[in-house]
């Protein structure tokens, strides 16, 4: 399938960070159109479009809007999740730096649907340039009188992956330690400041203007019936042309990797693909003839996730990769619930032992069992995210783990592409208590 722009439409030809340029291609014209609709009709249209959330879980955006307790006497809030921290993902950044006004236009439309006057965009703290571009766009659009009764506030995070989880994000936005909340109550009923809140990913919201422009029926013709529309795929790792590619949903993974991204770098062999950002089960080369959409990915035991493919070639030791991945989740565990806080750390210890060559076969069972005891039992999905990839390596590349144990060392003999990769959890960070070991 050829590339198809919707979110990024016009951005190759013009500098769409400029308000005048964006308006020149019809920007912000969908806002009055949407505002002419009743919120009920607008929500119905969004539901008909079946836009699936681009943040990871793929929950239909219109259905979420329909759950908002619009009768509540409290204000309603729209929160845009621009925390993009999933390893492998860099698509939201593309939208914010190249088509910031499209995101804002989507905000105004979505806000109308849920009868909200207050929009917050929570942008990860590391995105400084992105923040500046977005802030300028907000400023320009506000000055141009495009917001009407709505106000859009940018809120910068301060460095914590967990704040991408929607309820942790809300706590962080409220000025707290960003730790997830139990559900129920669900955000559409009790979210930000205990008021009804709609939370969506940047790309989800930036797709909304296209739905109004095309109408739900025509929008649904793009992509697949279960996953309409286009998606910006972030491709990284060992490919010739890593980067973002906006494609229709349903494009084959092989096409994305080998045609758009130019195939495996240096002509090497593909070893594995982590298709949705580092948190999902990995696929083997035999599994890549699969349409990239929510349902097809689910059918082969992984997740569409954040549409972010990490492509791994044959120089990579997967035990080392598993260790590095788990160290990330341990580092980012918020510390609130037991299985994730204690379990990720234990997994790291076991993986370190295996990687060092000190492992025994029973350690593989233990690793699997610890994973099983985290899976589905933690307060939010971060615990699951730590386990999914490791469990998939264990299942699909078990031989590599066994080789470490039997040879008493890494079979790559120091030649793995991720040999010795340093993790932030290993560096001395200044906790408030100097003596807490990692």
């Amino acid at each position, binding site marked *: 399938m050829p590339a198809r722009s919707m979110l990024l439409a016009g951005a190759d030809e013009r500098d769409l960070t400029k308000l005048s340029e964006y308006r020149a291609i019809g920007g912000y014209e969908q806002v009055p159109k949407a505002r002419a609709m009743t919120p009920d009709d607008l929500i119905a249209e969004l539901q008909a479009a079946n836009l699936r959330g681009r943040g990871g879980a793929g929950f239909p955006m219109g259905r979420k809007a329909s759950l908002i307790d619009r009768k509540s006497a409290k204000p309603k809030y729209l929160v845009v999740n621009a925390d993009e921290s999933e390893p492998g993902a860099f698509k939201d950044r593309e939208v914010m730096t190249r088509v910031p006004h499209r995101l804002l236009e989507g905000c105004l439309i979505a806000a109308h649907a849920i009868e909200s006057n207050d929009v917050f965009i929570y942008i990860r703290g590391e995105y400084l340039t992105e923040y500046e571009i977005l802030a300028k766009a907000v400023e320009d659009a506000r000055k141009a009188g495009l917001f009407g009764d709505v106000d859009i506030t940018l809120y910068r995070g301060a460095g*914590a992956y967990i704040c991408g989880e929607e309820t942790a994000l809300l706590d962080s936005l409220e000025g707290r*330690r960003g730790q997830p*909340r*139990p*559900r*129920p109550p669900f955000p559409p009923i009790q979210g930000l400041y205990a008021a009804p809140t709609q939370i969506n990913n940047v790309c989800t919201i930036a797709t909304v203007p296209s739905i109004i422009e095309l109408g739900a029926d025509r929008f649904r013709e793009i992509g697949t019936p279960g996953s309409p529309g286009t998606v910006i795929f972030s491709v990284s790792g060992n490919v010739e042309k890593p980067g973002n590619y906006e494609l229709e949903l349903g494009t084959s993974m092989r096409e994305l990797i080998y045609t758009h991204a130019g195939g495996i770098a240096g002509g090497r062999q593909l070893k594995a693909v982590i298709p949705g950002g580092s948190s999902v089960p990995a696929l083997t080369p035999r599994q890549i003839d699969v349409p990239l959409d929510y349902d097809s990915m689910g059918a082969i035991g992984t997740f569409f996730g954040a549409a972010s493919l990490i492509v791994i070639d044959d120089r990579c030791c997967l035990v080392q990769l598993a260790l590095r991945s788990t160290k990330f989740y*341990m*580092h*980012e*565990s*918020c*510390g*609130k*619930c*037991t*299985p994730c*806080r*204690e*379990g*990720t*750390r*234990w997994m790291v*210890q076991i993986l370190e*032992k295996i990687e060092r060559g000190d492992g025994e076969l029973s350690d593989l069972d*233990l690793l699997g*069992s610890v994973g099983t*005891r985290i899976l*589905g*039992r*933690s*307060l939010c999905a971060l615990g699951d995210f730590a386990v999914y990839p490791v469990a998939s390596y264990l299942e699909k590349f078990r031989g590599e783990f066994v080789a470490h144990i039997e040879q008493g060392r890494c079979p790559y003999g120091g030649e793995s592409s991720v040999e010795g990769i340093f993790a932030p959890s290993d560096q001395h960070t200044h*906790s*408030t*208590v100097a*003596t*807490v*070991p*990692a």
Partner: protein
Amino acid sequence: MSSPELVTVTIDGREVQVPKGTGLVETALAAGIEIPVFCYEPRLGPPVGACRMCLVEVEGMPKLQAGCTMTAQDGLKVLTAQTSALAAEGQNGTLEFILVNHPLDCPVCDKGGECPLQDLTFRWGPGSTRMEFEKRTLEKPIPVSPTIALDRERCILCYRCTRYSESVAEDGQLVAQNRGAQSVIATFDDRPYRAPFSGNVLELCPVGALTSTQYRFEARPWEIQNVPTVCGLCPVGCNTAATLREGKVKRIISRNHPEVDEGWLCDKGRFGFTHLYADDRIADPLRRVRLRGLEEISWDDALDEAERLLREADGRIVTALSGSETIEQAYALGRLLRGGLGSHTAVLPEETGPALDAFRLPLSAIRDAELVVVLGDEPVAERAPIVELWLKAARRNGAEVHYAGDALEGCRRLARVKDELGGRLRESDRAILIWSSEEGAGGAHLAALARELGFAERPGCGAFHLPRTANGRGVADAWAASDDGEGETPEAIGLLVVSGDEAAADPNVRALAERAERVLVTSMFQSLAAGWADLVLPGTSYLERDGTYVNLEGRLQRLRRTSIPPAPDELAWIAKLAERFDVAIDPFPSAVFAELSGKIYDGLPFGEVGEQAPLRTRSEAPAPELPEEPPAPKGEGLRLIRYKALFSGPAIERVPELQFQRPEPEVELSGKDAEKRGIASGDRVRVSHDGTSVELRARVSRSLRPGVVRIAAEHAGDLGGNVEVTT
């Protein structure tokens, strides 16, 4: 209110009916099934679902669910670990994770034997460990304050303590720091947790992470007894238990009375007990020798001496009461001094009266109120600490809480028909008035206001006067009931009988003593009696007496002797002494109470006062008057509020661990007054009035209204009236 909809929930095959929305943990309990928990504690606010101990299987859901975050819905079917292998495996997993880094130092842990972690591990946990790596080790124990020690290795990060600090005590001092596996419980910059309600975290901690420094290595659970009693250090009367080992009190814990204290204690009540073992505790009677010295004498000599003093005074006796005596003690004293000797004059540190009995409500009604008005500028927490927690709970529940400023003025203002707030008080079905001021005629003015606002007809509205003494009301009533006679206050005082430590420490009583020919003091502490008493009889603590108290709600509560005092208690020697004047007094509190109860408590038997006493129903009382006098002329300067600090008084002064909680030498000013004078928090300032002045540190307070300043009495020197504050 409509009665809540009942729903049917099935737990492990057992059906129960509970109101819709009941927590699943409580629902299961109603079915006789326990869902084990660590972090779940409804008193701390909404569940957080952190520890994952409560995992259950729910029909229709593929994953295990945290039971503590679920509520009862019709048709809900739940399988707990009792019947579900999956849930049992889940709980086993949670415990395995909890124990991965737990030191398992139970043999040397104070919590051992009364530890939820031990108990749940025994029932649901793994029998052996699969963890072969070195456990995390941390510096321990860390002093969180002089009263609380923290062992971070044992901490399971249930966040009970930090949630308590943030959303019950609202002191925001105990927090979690760092993230993930490095998270620890801490205070700001490791400074002491200095707040009036800090000790409650000791009982909330489900493991041995937060322990009492007083109780450290003092006892094992199987060698202790917990004796139920009530706290006698303030007018709230929190329900407590004293933990004893070998006859000695080792700690005080709460005995949750949901209407009085909800299971919280203030630090004075919790940690103040070591005054029992003060260095200057008196065990034997003492007689004055030469000018200032005291010598120990035998009890026989002491009774002879007391008899002689009483006879020589020839009826010109004045009694200074503390307000901390038991009802029985006060009654017995009255029988002897009034009935036996015709000496009817007594002074109490404050006025009390029955006027508010018509507006009685349990303290918990504050939490359920929609509108609360506090009259008076004294900090509520300093007078009746737990009331402050109820006020915070009310605010969290969405109640409006108003501070009406000067009590008398506010009282008159609210009574006016046109007053806006007064008008809303007249309309509300759940309004509460609280009087936090030294003035007020023992609640009479407040009662007049409540009557004027129509509270008598609205059972959801009530009024509380916060007295200064723990049992002033009971003491006054018992003294009054002890005899029918009346008598003149003697011109010249032949003998001043000083009953108890608070009276002995009271400057007004000392001034009276200057005018008395002789002084007989009952006190626990030698330094309180030395220098002015002719005869000293050993006093006892509220922890050493059997009897009853009346708290500020008007609730009659039972005090128990938790440990044996070093000398016979007051009732015992009063009875003996009374014999010499042919007054028959039973030395047993039950008998004394029976006699008194017939007169003023509708004959309620002693045994029925109850371990968790009910509140007596509202009763009519004569209608008092609103305060009449016109507002005191404003005058120059700022009105000084001198208040008795919570952490003060003879008992607290003798508790080394509580000295860090004593009031700071500071003056509290409103932001406006501070700004006008160019004063910032921390500045050294001079507070002066009429030639006298005191140097103090300034603290700018957000809660104080302009025009008044507050200083703890012990730092206020001779200041009174209106003052000026200068840099």
